[in-house]
């Protein structure tokens, strides 16, 4: 892809240092700046997604009310809200923040090189991503409103305007998603190539920090799974705009084909966002437990196992979608098998705590919370992976609660864990621990108050994407309404507490105390650079002598042993 670089750009990179604000912060090719761009774009999109969640949760609890700060949530608006809440949180928050932001920031710093191998491709990747975000946001304001066919965008509803009634919205949504995929393909190839080729001298494969392994494996999973969906997106765009019939059975197409194209990507996608967070958690628990990561290689094998298995389970999203019932048996087995590497991974993380000396700093709290909450997400997945039980649970709030118990820990908890951990490196200031802990508890407690009740409602038969349950006598029992009120209250509480985070962010940026090079006494290479690292990261690129997790090595005065410290 290096061919993209046009000759007239030659001096740009060299002339970087004396370049002005625009060059430095908007059109920079520096991996740290690009990481920040991804992160703050992702956070901005996250606020939109959260706002949508607030609006439709109020509507669910108090149907027909004039939601403060939003207005009345009509049926069509409700569908658009849930659709875009899902799309935003997965494609425009989880992906850019976990994969792109942390990937861009950490890969060069942890591997001891001065930048990504293709800085310009990297910048192009962000610019395409930004464009996709703009297209998506614009789609909310076109005639007919934003796309309202659920984030899975099943045809024929999404294929024909007369069904979906969002003539422009659906095409813009699809175009935005396709652009986003292109952005992450470019970024992913950059990540993979950098990690494969540009490790610091002396760094063997097993000296690579876990988070880098995870991000690279995630990029590979994304790259291998997204292709069919890109093809599918082209086909669906043509169905929408050119009148082809790829997904129209009357004219020789098949709507089920889209579901396969979508979920062949959609399931690996879960692991694409899961793995970076799992890696971040590995870095944090080892640092704050002052422990070597338990069975490094086994973790690695579980990652590879998960990655390969994740390509064989996709149709468990379609058990009752009209696929041949005989296929369901195969997909049940593969789905339950995938619980094994994941379970082992969680066991290992818990085992890592054994014999440690655990400091409950804010990042550590987030990391531990991830393990606890993700356990719930993992075990409830078993109910849905088991085809027999899924007949009842499919498309109920049980499913919804399940994947929020996976995606919330992955995206939100994972983001806060990484952000509070690397903040000193990113901005050269320490964060306020007290505010951090308030924010933590103010997020975790309401989160469980939202989604534990949703498991119960789902088990009681409450089905998804319904803007008003008053039409369903069995779903209008008093206890259900009370539960919905509790949930709405919890949503508002949780969102309110996010303000604490932004206050903490602003306070620390302005008045935070100066961060030393290595505030957490951690081993990995990024902590040997200045905080924040200058352009080029190191005056002299480091050399590596040992693995990343050599904490509390017996017979050493210090309880940590930086990777670059000669023996």
């Amino acid at each position: 892809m290096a061919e993209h670089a046009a000759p007239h750009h030659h001096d740009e990179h060299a002339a970087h240092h004396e370049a002005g604000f625009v060059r430095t912060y908007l059109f920079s090719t520096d991996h740290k700046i690009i990481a920040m761009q991804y992160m703050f774009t992702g956070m901005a999109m996250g606020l939109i997604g959260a706002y949508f969640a607030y609006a439709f949760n109020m509507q669910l609890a108090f149907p027909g009310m004039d939601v403060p700060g939003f207005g009345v949530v009509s049926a069509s608006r409700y569908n658009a809200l849930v659709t875009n809440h899902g799309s935003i949180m997965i494609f425009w928050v989880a992906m850019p923040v976990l994969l792109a932001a942390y990937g861009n920031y950490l890969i060069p710093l942890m591997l001891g090189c001065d930048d990504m191998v293709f800085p310009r491709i990297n910048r192009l990747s962000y610019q395409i991503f930004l464009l996709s975000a703009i297209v998506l946001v614009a789609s909310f304001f076109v005639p007919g409103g934003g796309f309202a066919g659920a984030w899975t965008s099943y045809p024929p509803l999404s294929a024909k305007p007369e069904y979906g009634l969002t003539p422009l919205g659906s095409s813009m949504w699809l175009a935005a998603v396709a652009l986003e995929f292109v952005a992450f393909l470019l970024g992913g190839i950059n990540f993979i190539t950098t990690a494969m080729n540009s490790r610091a001298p002396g760094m063997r494969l097993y000296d690579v920090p876990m988070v880098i392994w995870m991000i690279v494996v995630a990029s590979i999973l994304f790259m291998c799974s997204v292709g069919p969906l890109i093809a599918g997106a082209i086909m669906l765009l043509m169905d929408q705009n050119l009148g082809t019939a790829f997904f129209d059975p009357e004219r020789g197409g098949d709507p089920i084909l889209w579901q396969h194209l979508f979920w062949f990507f959609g399931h690996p996608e879960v692991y694409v966002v899961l793995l970076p967070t799992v890696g971040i958690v590995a870095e944090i628990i080892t640092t704050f437990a002052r422990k070597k990561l338990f069975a490094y290689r086994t973790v690695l094998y579980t990652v590879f196992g998960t990655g390969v298995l994740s390509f064989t389970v996709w149709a468990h999203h379609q058990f009752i979608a009209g696929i041949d019932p005989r296929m369901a048996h195969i997909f049940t087995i593969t789905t339950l098998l995938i619980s094994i590497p994941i379970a082992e991974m969680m066991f290992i993380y818990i085992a890592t705590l054994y014999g440690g000396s655990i400091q409950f700093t804010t990042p550590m709290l987030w990391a531990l919370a991830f393990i606890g909450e993700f356990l719930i997400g993992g075990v409830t997945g078993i109910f849905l992976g088991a085809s027999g039980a899924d007949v009842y649970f499919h498309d109920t709030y049980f499913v919804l609660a399940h994947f929020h118990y996976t995606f919330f820990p992955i995206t939100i908890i994972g983001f806060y864990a990484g952000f509070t951990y690397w903040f000193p490196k990113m901005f050269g200031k320490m964060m306020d621990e007290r505010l951090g802990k308030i924010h933590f508890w103010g997020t975790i407690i309401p989160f469980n108050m939202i989604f534990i009740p949703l498991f119960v409602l789902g088990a009681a038969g409450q089905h998804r994407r319904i803007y008003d349950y008053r039409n369903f006598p069995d779903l209008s029992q008093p206890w259900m309404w009370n539960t919905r009120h509790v949930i709405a209250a919890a949503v508002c509480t949780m969102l309110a507490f996010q303000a604490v985070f932004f206050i903490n962010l602003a306070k620390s940026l302005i008045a935070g105390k100066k961060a030393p090079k290595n505030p957490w006494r951690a081993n990995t290479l990024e902590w040997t650079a200045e905080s924040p690292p200058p352009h080029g990261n190191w005056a002299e690129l480091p050399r590596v002598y040992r693995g990343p997790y050599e904490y509390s090595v017996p017979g050493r005065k210090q309880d940590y042993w930086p990777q670059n410290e000669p023996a």
Partner: protein
Amino acid sequence: MAHAHATHHPINYIRVWFILVLLLIVSVAGPFLGIRWVTLLTAFGIACIKAVMVARNFMHINLEQRYISYVIITVLVFMLLFFAGVSPDVMKKEGSGWVKPSWKAAAAASSAAQGGAAHH
């Protein structure tokens, strides 16, 4: 390094190209015998041979690091997996407990005589 290898055993690219063209002619000639399995063989068998020839002689995949071939093979395997998982629904007109009436109607309408080369 790939180049080093390549110069050690030089490939006669003109000859490779010539063979490719010959194969192309065969694959075009195949259907004229009008036997389905011959057509399939000359069409897709030769396509695979040509693809491998280009990959080896022009892209030098066999001179690259081993893992390159493994990556390519892996993604191809994933595509087979995709086909295996999807075809029971999309490639069939009816299955266990479901049927696509419109597809069956269309099939009935088209005369069996025109059953194409790709027909199983």
